[in-house]
């Protein structure tokens, strides 16, 4: 028997592992540890396996699917994180590892990181492209508002609308704007307006708050719903300085809910004033047209008169020409210039030469104003 007392107890591997497991798991139930993610693997099971390391040591970690689904950001190698969980021993390998319960990026908050990651991914996909943005209707017949049915936001929106266009038609789709499931409600509300099809524009609104409060508007499901909306969406989430993913995807971002209402609805008084001005212009242009047209008629008359006158003048000149020509041809005209015609008195034949003339012959000389009879005395040749 004493032998038996000195004999060490020999354990099986499984027994030892089991004992270690009990001790370790009892002590390290809630561990917080920081390190760099490395060797990350995410097989089809949905669980993730990775190591956390610092300069000297490495800790194996398991992130089960359920815990992983709660992560707001995507894990990647090289990321500095703070992990919490329990230490356990995986019996088969005899390896201790951290079963991760929560994980957050070191430095920037988890939400901040999730925001940046989703923003980068959606930007890459083109969801923020200007070309995808729809323009807002000029005068919306029906305005859909997705927001909390109580509180300052809806009151502000209704007040601004009342001031700008007292007879606006507003349909409120009430949703929770923060907390678990709020994002899904918001996304569904946008979808409902699209299915209903009678809203001309949708305002997505929420008052100011912390990043956590505004978180629903940073969720992908909301971004997708806005992107899929055929109705233009104006987002007005938080204060002027708050930017959410919804703001980037929306067709227009308003700094505040009141500003969204202003953006969506023109002021009725201004519209009426504008129409008034247009009608005045219209009248003025018609009034301008009449003198313009009568001026044209005057111009035409003048032109016609001028054309006729020119034509008349041309004809008259032509006629004068003819007259002058005729005049030139008239033999009397020659006589008028002082010439005379000599004929034989007997046969009144005009003499062109002295040939055949004999002294004593009777001649008749025709002048412009009469004639005389004379006798040839002497005939001489031209000198």
């Amino acid at each position: 028997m004493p032998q038996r007392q000195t004999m060490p107890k020999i354990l099986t591997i499984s027994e030892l592992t089991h004992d270690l497991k009990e001790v370790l798991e009892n002590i390290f139930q809630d561990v917080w540890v920081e390190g760099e993610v490395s060797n990350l693997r995410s097989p089809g099971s949905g669980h993730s396996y990775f190591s956390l390391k610092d300069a000297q040591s490495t800790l194996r970690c398991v992130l089960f699917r359920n815990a992983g689904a709660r992560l707001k950001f995507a894990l990647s190698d090289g990321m500095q994180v703070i992990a919490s969980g329990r230490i356990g021993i995986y019996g088969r390998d005899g390896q201790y590892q951290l079963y991760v319960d929560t994980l957050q990026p070191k430095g920037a908050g988890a939400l901040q990181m999730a925001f940046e990651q989703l923003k980068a991914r959606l930007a890459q996909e083109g969801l923020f492209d200007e070309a995808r943005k729809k323009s807002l209707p000029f005068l919306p017949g029906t305005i859909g508002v997705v927001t909390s049915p109580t509180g300052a936001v809806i009151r502000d929106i209704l007040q601004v609308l009342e001031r700008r266009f007292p007879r606006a038609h507003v349909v409120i789709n009430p949703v929770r704007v923060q907390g678990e499931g709020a994002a899904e409600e918001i996304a569904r509300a946008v979808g409902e307006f699209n299915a209903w099809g009678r809203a001309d524009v949708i305002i997505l609104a929420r008052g100011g708050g912390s990043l956590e409060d505004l978180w629903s508007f940073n969720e992908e499901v909301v971004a997708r719903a806005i992107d899929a909306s055929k109705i233009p969406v104006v987002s007005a989430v938080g204060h002027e300085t708050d930017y959410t993913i919804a703001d980037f995807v929306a067709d227009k971002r308003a700094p505040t809910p009141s500003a969204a209402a202003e953006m969506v609805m023109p002021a009725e008084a201004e519209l009426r004033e504008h129409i008034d001005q247009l009608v005045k212009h219209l009248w003025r242009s018609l009034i301008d047209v009449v003198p313009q047209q009568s001026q044209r008629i005057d111009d035409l008359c003048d032109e016609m008169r001028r054309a006729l006158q020119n034509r008349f003048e041309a004809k008259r000149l032509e006629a004068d020409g003819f007259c002058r020509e005729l005049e030139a041809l008239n033999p009397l005209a020659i006589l008028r210039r002082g010439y005379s015609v000599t004929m034989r008195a007997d046969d009144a034949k005009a003499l062109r030469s002295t040939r055949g003339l004999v002294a004593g012959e009777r001649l008749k000389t025709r002048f412009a104003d009469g004639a005389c009879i004379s006798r040839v005395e002497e005939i001489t040749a031209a000198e």
Partner: protein
Amino acid sequence: MGFEENLKKLEKIIDDLHSEKISLEKSIERFEEGVKLADHCLKTLDGMRKKIEVVAKTKDGKLKIKPLEEEA
């Protein structure tokens, strides 16, 4: 509703009327058209009715829209 289109057309008509080329007959025609458009725009504004409603969710997932109960 074409409110904006009507306004745009009206502006175009005014431009056209200022053009030298338009005939008198045509300008009177355009003017009448413009008056009608302006009238139509004003009627659209007059025809709008104040209505504030809330979407109520029914069990079968259909939208039911009912008037907002104003807070007292």
